[in-house]
């Protein structure tokens, strides 16, 4: 378990939090809950409700839809927000590939978290735009 100061340092390195000054980052660090997952453990379950917004701090996760791997995510990546925003169960399994450390915001707390940190939300919006462009189909 990282101390709060250490966690703030870690968060400050991530693109998602690049616009935050240290006092705001400290607030973020206090809100986030840290979790570890072992190799093969599921962080998110496709089709299951009751989830959260996750930010990957250490290790790698595999994104699987109907058992088929679609992507690998690494340090600084985030996931789980779409299901919460849409009020739907996750559209994919997210599985730890090796030992994984994440921080997360519980689903019901996400709206308040985002309203309190609009710069983080804007970074998420930019990432969402990037995902849509790389999905490269209807995107325009």
């Amino acid at each position, binding site marked *: 378990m990282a101390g709060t100061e250490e966690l703030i340092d870690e968060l400050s390195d991530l693109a998602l939090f690049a616009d935050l000054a240290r006092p705001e980052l400290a607030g973020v660090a206090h809100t986030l809950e840290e979790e570890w997952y072992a190799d093969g453990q599921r962080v998110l379950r496709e089709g299951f409700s009751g989830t959260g917004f996750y930010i990957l701090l250490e290790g790698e996760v595999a994104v699987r*839809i*109907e058992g088929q791997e*679609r992507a690998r995510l690494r340090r600084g990546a985030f996931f789980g*927000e*779409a299901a919460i*925003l*849409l009020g*739907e169960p996750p*559209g*994919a399994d997210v599985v730890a590939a090796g030992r994984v450390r994440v921080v997360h915001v519980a689903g019901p707390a996400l*709206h308040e978290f*985002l*309203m309190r940190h*609009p710069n983080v*939300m*804007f970074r*998420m*919006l*930019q990432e*969402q*735009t*990037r*995902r*849509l*462009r790389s*999905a*490269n*189909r*209807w*995107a*325009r």
Partner: protein
Amino acid sequence: MVGGMTMTVAERAALLSHVTLFAGLPEASLQALAELAGEAEFGDGDAIVLQGQVGTGLFVIVAGAARVVRGGEELDRLGPGDYLGELAVIDRMPRMASVFSVGPTTCLALASWDLFRRVDGDPELVHSLLRGLAMRVRHLSEHHSH
């Protein structure tokens, strides 16, 4: 709407409230967007946005229709209530497709600089954009898995 008629701010706000990108926005945010929105008229076949250009605006179709074209291939048809141009407005990268009007078409146009100014002080607007794009990403991945 066609023929140079002008919508009131309340009419524009009502229209924007039915656009998925702005679904669930509080009345005050809708009102502010409606005040910034301009009306743009396009003749049959006019380019509303062009592939490769850097985006300066987001458009919502009020009346008429449009077709989305990339590299000569038609990808989609759009009608009243549909929006276009949102990605380039957010990331200021070149447009990925062109959109041409089909018949006389009226759009509400939101300039990127106006939208950015709003985004700064209106977290609910960013939230609704994030939600709208999340919906699009989800639809894409569902299409791909079938």
